[in-house]
């Protein structure tokens, strides 16, 4: 369920690092808890993301939730497909539903994130 090569936050975001860039998104557990997602507010390209600060938000039928940046750095790309097709976040949260790519400014932050096994344990506890 939760890819081994990802890192996770306690707030249910994920980051997948390739070189000095991290693709980020929300986890399967997060999208399931939110329910049908109808709108995604993406960050702007060029924005300086700061770990733990708001990166964007997702609106489900029921509620709005902030997405927090799992890592710090510059946003270099956002997933424009989510503007027209927000339900990608429900359908494929760890793949086609990615939110943004961030050029890492402090790669050491990754050490404080959860690995797949730890995240799985967290989710098991919450549900």
């Amino acid at each position, binding site marked *: 369920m939760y890819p081994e090569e990802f890192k996770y936050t306690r707030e249910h975001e994920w980051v997948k690092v390739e070189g000095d860039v991290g693709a980020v998104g929300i986890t399967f557990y997060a999208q399931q808890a939110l*329910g*049908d997602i*109808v*709108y995604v507010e993406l960050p702007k390209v060029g924005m300086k993301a700061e770990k733990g600060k708001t990166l964007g*938000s997702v*609106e489900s*039928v*029921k*509620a*709005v939730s902030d997405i927090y940046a799992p890592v710090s750095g510059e946003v270099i790309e956002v997933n424009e497909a989510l503007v027209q097709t927000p339900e990608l976040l429900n359908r494929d949260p760890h793949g086609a539903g990615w939110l943004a790519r961030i050029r890492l400014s402090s790669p050491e932050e990754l050490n404080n994130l959860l690995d797949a096994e730890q995240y799985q344990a967290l989710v098991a506890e919450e549900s």
Partner: protein
Amino acid sequence: MPAGALKRTPLYELHRELGARMVEFGGWEMPVQYSGIIEEHLAVRRAVGLFDVSHMGEIEVRGPEAPALIEYVTTNQASRLSTGQAQYSAMLYQHGGFVDDLLVHKVADDYYFLCVNASNQEKDYRHILRYNRFRAEVEFASDRYVQLALQGPRAEEVLGRLTATDLTAIRYYHFTDGEVCGVPARIARTGYTGEDGFELYLAPRHGVRVFRELLRAGEEFGIRPCGLGARNTLRLEAKMALYGHEIDASIRPPEAELNWIVKMDKGEFVGRAALERLAAAGVRRKLIGFEMLDRTVARDGYPVYVQGRAVGWVTSGGPAPYLNKNIGLCYLPADLAEVGRTIQIGVRGRLAEALTVRTPFYRRPKTNP
């Protein structure tokens, strides 16, 4: 959340088995969704959906003085009800604010059955007792009923398979005491979705079986068990008030556009004097519907601006799954509450444009029998 403190309906285990996600609502642990709010919402609009709404409260008023008490504590004209008829009504404080909204069913000349909101039921009961100078018999009856709502254009067909009662003879806002699945049931053609449908009141021990049988009977139409999430989006599209949102103790009927359930000429009732004063002074705020002009979603409690001034607040807002737009209801100063006005909603630190519109947002198509 201390789960032990929450009340559960007799269908709790069944909801879990059906894959429901449970949430706290008004002191109850209730299903918010099963397959997904949008899917459930659309099932009700297009075919049929089934809700456990046993958290709702029931109060029974009996005796020769029952009509006098009902007429005194509610705003609509209960004396005009025929036996087997129901009406939407309200209970007010002396100051004119809402105690609750409710359905009044006339079971017999000396027997009225009230369906009230879950989180208000104890308060409602005390309110009625307080004004019971008529010595009517008032019973808090919530523990004697489960309530199931079968809603949607296919509801009559589905329920028809499980009852010998002639459902076509039950007109909108009427009810009859019959049987469903061989057990006694009060069958009312009422609902909170904007669709045709039925609300069933049964003894708690029959709830699970009747819920299962209804799901089976509705299978071929694609029936869905539906949670409170879809119940809320459905009622919002149909512009039905929700206590704690459109109405509460600080809101009076004319402000909520609910004058149609207040019969000022029927004689004395609790809150009447305050409403007379309000009419003389003029109503200063009004509830009005709006549609977002972009894809932003307005939520309950967001501030509403007109020409840069914060002048109101959103009472209910969210996506309208059937209409495929984002809608809401808000209070505005009465002189600004007109259809076709551009307003701004304060959405998490920025302003989003919306347009005030006619309501209900959704009205079901008229069908010929």
